[in-house]
């Protein structure tokens, strides 16, 4: 709903100023699990009523009013930063945003994107506040016909299709195993030492540090170094 109010405002202003409107939506990218993201989506849609394909709605409404609407395709990222970065590129006369009207707990936990943009933007910002369903009637009618499909939360990597024989699976696995053995041999070695050679394990090296204790304490830094070493080798394959 706030997005629709903002679209209306932007296009009305563009009619007056004979301007071009750029529209965009930013999928937020966070380290959240899918269920958490869905949880936030559900909360969002409670305020916005529905999930419409925003840029499409704007384009149709622009056509009706003879305003050119261009879509700015945007990769996922932090919302405020992405909006401002896009603004830097197109140098707009004005940024128009809808205020979600979130209150209470929602505002506390999720904050306000509009507020973030206002605070940091070098360009003039217009923020719509609240909305009147009757006034937005024509836009809402368009939006109802353009419901966006459910969000795709998958993060499948973009790769070309390569025959298995060209992936060097064997060599990669060998590198992985080599790294693994660097840690696993001393790891299982501790088990062998403890069960078959307990006297050696209990031998004091200095202070009250026995061989077994020193072995245990050495396994941790050894593991960290193994990880680092593997990372460096594997980075060459990226």
């Amino acid at each position: 709903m706030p997005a629709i109010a903002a679209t209306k405002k932007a296009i009305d202003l563009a009619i007056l100023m004979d301007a071009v409107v750029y529209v965009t939506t930013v999928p937020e990218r966070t380290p959240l699990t899918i269920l958490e993201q869905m949880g936030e989506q559900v909360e969002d849609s409670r305020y916005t009523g529905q999930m419409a394909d925003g840029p499409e709605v704007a384009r149709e409404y622009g056509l009706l009013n003879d305003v050119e609407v261009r879509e700015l395709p945007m990769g996922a990222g932090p919302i405020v930063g992405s909006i401002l970065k896009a603004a830097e590129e197109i140098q707009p006369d004005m940024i128009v945003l809808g205020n979600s009207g979130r209150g209470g707990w929602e505002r506390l936990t999720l904050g306000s994107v509009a507020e973030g943009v206002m605070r940091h933007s070098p360009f003039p910002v217009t923020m719509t506040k609240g909305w009147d369903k009757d006034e937005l009637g024509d836009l809402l009618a368009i939006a109802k016909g353009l419901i966006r499909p459910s969000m795709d939360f998958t993060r499948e990597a973009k790769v070309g299709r390569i025959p298995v024989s060209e992936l060097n699976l064997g060599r990669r696995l060998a590198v992985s195993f080599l790294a693994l053995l660097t840690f696993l041999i001393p790891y299982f070695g501790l088990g062998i030492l403890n069960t078959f050679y307990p006297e050696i394990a209990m031998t004091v090296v200095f202070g009250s540090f026995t061989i077994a204790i020193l072995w245990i304490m050495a396994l941790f830094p050894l593991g960290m170094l193994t990880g680092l070493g593997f990372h460096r080798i594997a980075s060459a394959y990226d």
Partner: protein
Amino acid sequence: MTNYVALSIVLFLVAISLIVAIYSRRWSRTTTEFYVAGRKISWVQNSLALTGDYLSAASFLGVAGAIAVVGIDRAWDGIGYFGGYIVLLVLLAVPLRKIGKFTAPEALTTRFTGNRSIRFSAMFSVILISTFYIIPQFIGAGALLQLLLGWPYVSSVLVIGVIVISYVAIGGMRATTYNQIIQGVILWMAMALILILTVTQFYGGSFSAILENAGMAVPPQLASILLAEPYPIWSDLTAGEAVAHVSEKLTGQPDGLTPGVFATGWMNTMALAVGLVFGTAGLPHVLIRYFTVEKPKDARTSTLGVLFLVGTFYMMATFVGLAAMYLLYPDLMGYFLAGEASIAQNMAVPLLGQMVGGDIMLGVAIGGAFCAILSTVAGLLITIGTSVTHDFYKEVINPDADDKRQVMVAKLSIVAAGVIAVIFAIGLADQNVSYLVTLAFGIAASVFFPVLFLSVWWAKYTSQGALATILTGIFLSSIFVIARLYGMDDLMGIPVLVNPALYSLPAALIAGTVVSLLTEDVGDVENFMSLAHGPELEE
């Protein structure tokens, strides 16, 4: 009996972790700075979230607690929990991220497209492993409330169960990740603080002195079984007197630095070592985090961060446990002989905190433990919720379900799993929480590790082979865990070991390999392998 100073500190720490989490979620949405820093800090955030998720009651209370009552042999838990991340790093981290699905079962059906037997048996394994992992968290929480408020164990578990389940089902569904980040920081620092205070106050800054003392004590759990009556009044004795008294009566017994006290013989030792080191790479709530990192490369850097954080954590926990064995000797003996094993097994860290820093440090220790429990249970319940909705509900019952409906189904399954875990936690009160977690590791090491490893690395692996791996792993590991918890020594002539993985992991690998050689359905292998291992295209 209520300890108000400690109680306020616990509430303060938990509240702080929640408030900071809320604020940071908000901050990440509304600042530009985040954008600049975002790319750099995403892997730091993720490794902290993984650490908070991973370090549970088992790590915070259980590892040091077990070392305090059994001795250095239980250092295996820490080394294994740590080493598991190396297996994950070199074999699965990046491929899993590139496959980029919601759940481990879905990652499998990306290769074996549309195979519902695989998907459902994997989903069932997710629920089983994660629920089994929650049980010890509730046991730890119950014992903590018992210590803090003096409540009976059963009501403690019930109260904490209701609180944790509602926290996740009502509020925690959104931005649990941010709580885990903060809680990871708090529990790491709580352990560091306890160790520093202990070693400076009682050992003149010498770690060697900690070992020297532990080397004089017969491990309390062993001593409490062997010692004949009459017992001295433990609370009248100093640590030194209690240790000397027991050592005098029980000559020739192992001490705190003797290996092999817990896992006797090579089979037990190797069973524990195998279960732990291959378990992490099979834990559904750990795997699910790898689907959330920004870039495939971040999967590796995040894991490196985790290795550093959990590695240093377990090094500290080992010394805290050994120090606790000696310093708390009269207390631990007293609890064991009074039949309060649930406190003796798991409360060494808070008790040591109280000894070195009074009620304030008792509060810090219990607060740290609550953070560990909250973040881990939240991660586990969310994993269960995701799997039930995504692998079952949306797949079979209602493919057109919208987000709202899915979130509701997830919440219902979260409540159901939580309630089941509470019931089992009441039944398994006297177990060491870290030991129960090692059993969950054993099951994970026998199911998800082998099936994911073979799927990701072997082009000739077939759908029938994958199903054979899952079923063999889940069946064998489950019956040996049950046999162990029932105290059976052998099962049809096969000795029951401290961990099932020595049998069930190789069996699952062999079953998968043999069946794959006899069958042909390799799934969408070219697409899947390109996805998992191919070079990334520029976006």
